[in-house]
């Protein structure tokens, strides 16, 4: 038991990394992605995007794509196909801005 205690303490010291949200007070149920798409989503059904980071209280970091039908699809933030869609959306947004101004 003493050895277990020592190991646990050591682990805690070297890595103050985990804690449950409830430990720090409020346990807020955030709107989050529970998983992300494994296969590429076609870019032309997407009209908007936003990031959901760990900092937003989510366990799974994700890019949320809003489709033309209004669905919010979850995509992995570290995939090249996701970057491509984001770049295209940003380019389109910049073009729209130039148009309107």
């Amino acid at each position, binding site marked *: 038991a003493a050895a277990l205690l020592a190991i646990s303490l050591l682990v805690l010291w070297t890595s103050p990394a985990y804690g449950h949200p409830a430990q720090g007070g409020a346990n807020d149920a955030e709107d989050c992605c529970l998983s992300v798409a494994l296969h590429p989503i076609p870019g032309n059904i997407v009209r908007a*995007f936003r990031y959901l980071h760990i900092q937003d209280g989510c366990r799974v970091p994700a890019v949320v794509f809003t489709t033309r*039908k209004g669905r*919010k699809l979850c995509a992995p933030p570290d995939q090249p196909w996701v970057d491509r869609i984001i770049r295209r959306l940003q380019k389109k947004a910049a073009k729209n801005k130039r148009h309107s101004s």
Partner: protein
Amino acid sequence: MGTEPTEQVSWGPYSGDDEEAYSAEPLPELCYKADVQAFSRAFQSSISLTVAALGLAGNGLVLATHLAARNAARSPTCAHLLQLALADLLLALTLPFAAAGALQGWSLGSATCRAISGLYSASFHAGFLFLACISADRYLAITRALPAGPRPSGPGRAHLVSVIVWLLSLLLALPALLFSQDGQREGQRRCRLIFPEGLAQTVKGASAVAQVALGFALPLGVMAACYALLGRTLLAAGPERRRALRVVVALVAAFVVLQLPYSLALLLDTADLLAARERSCPASKRKDLALLVTGGLALARCGLNPVLYAFLGLRFRQDLRRLLRGGSCSSVPRPRGRCPRRPRLPSCSAPTETHSASYWDH
């Protein structure tokens, strides 16, 4: 962010009902929890305020009675009951902040957020660990009261144990102390625990195991073992110990009903995290609700501790009456038929020690 939803006209092969046509499996969607969040705000704020009022009054009374009787820490149980009341009082002090934060967002800055979260976490763990200490003290007290029992140990050891418990609680509160921050989300600032990104999963896992082992399994194991042994000893000791046995059963039942569901929910949630298990949105919402409700019960335990652990004690009630009457003890029947000039018996004697405390208190 994104473009305006200007074009509703469908174009290309993926439109309308065909959005999902290219994919065999359903696409993962954002899980909205507005209903859970609304319930959480109402539930957390009302529970927090109720427990804060109960906890401040009850534990304040326990501490005042101990201090007025000037017999703090005469026995190990006494010292640990005092520390339990202190931990619960500190916890109760943080709850109004939590309630305000749940209702209208966090407005006190990151430093206060860290301090309040750390205090909450440390006092919550300390309370759990002191419950385990008290169960051990009671078992030892009962065995020592028996003719063949070992010699009692002095209060020095109890103080040492208290210091260790507080250090351990601080250690368990380190994540909350270090990583709590007030972050903005959907227009509201909130104080919560956010871990830095980029930590290895194995490191997180090892640390989670440590949290569960020290913050949950250790106190639970000690309590289970001690109350089981205590129950066996009391059963063997004969019918005059029935009252003490009933009190033990009440304490264990209260603990099982109030604390265990939350500990188990946390354990399951930790297992989810470690296994990186995916849940469906409804299942995830059910889990959030379970954590919320069981967390409320566990908080209620902190408010009820004074009732369960102090007010059930005969001598505590006598000392309390004396405190409220301004120091006279005339009408109170003393267990040994006299009114001591200086209180000689600890006001915190546990109910299980009703007949045995005087054996080992001198």
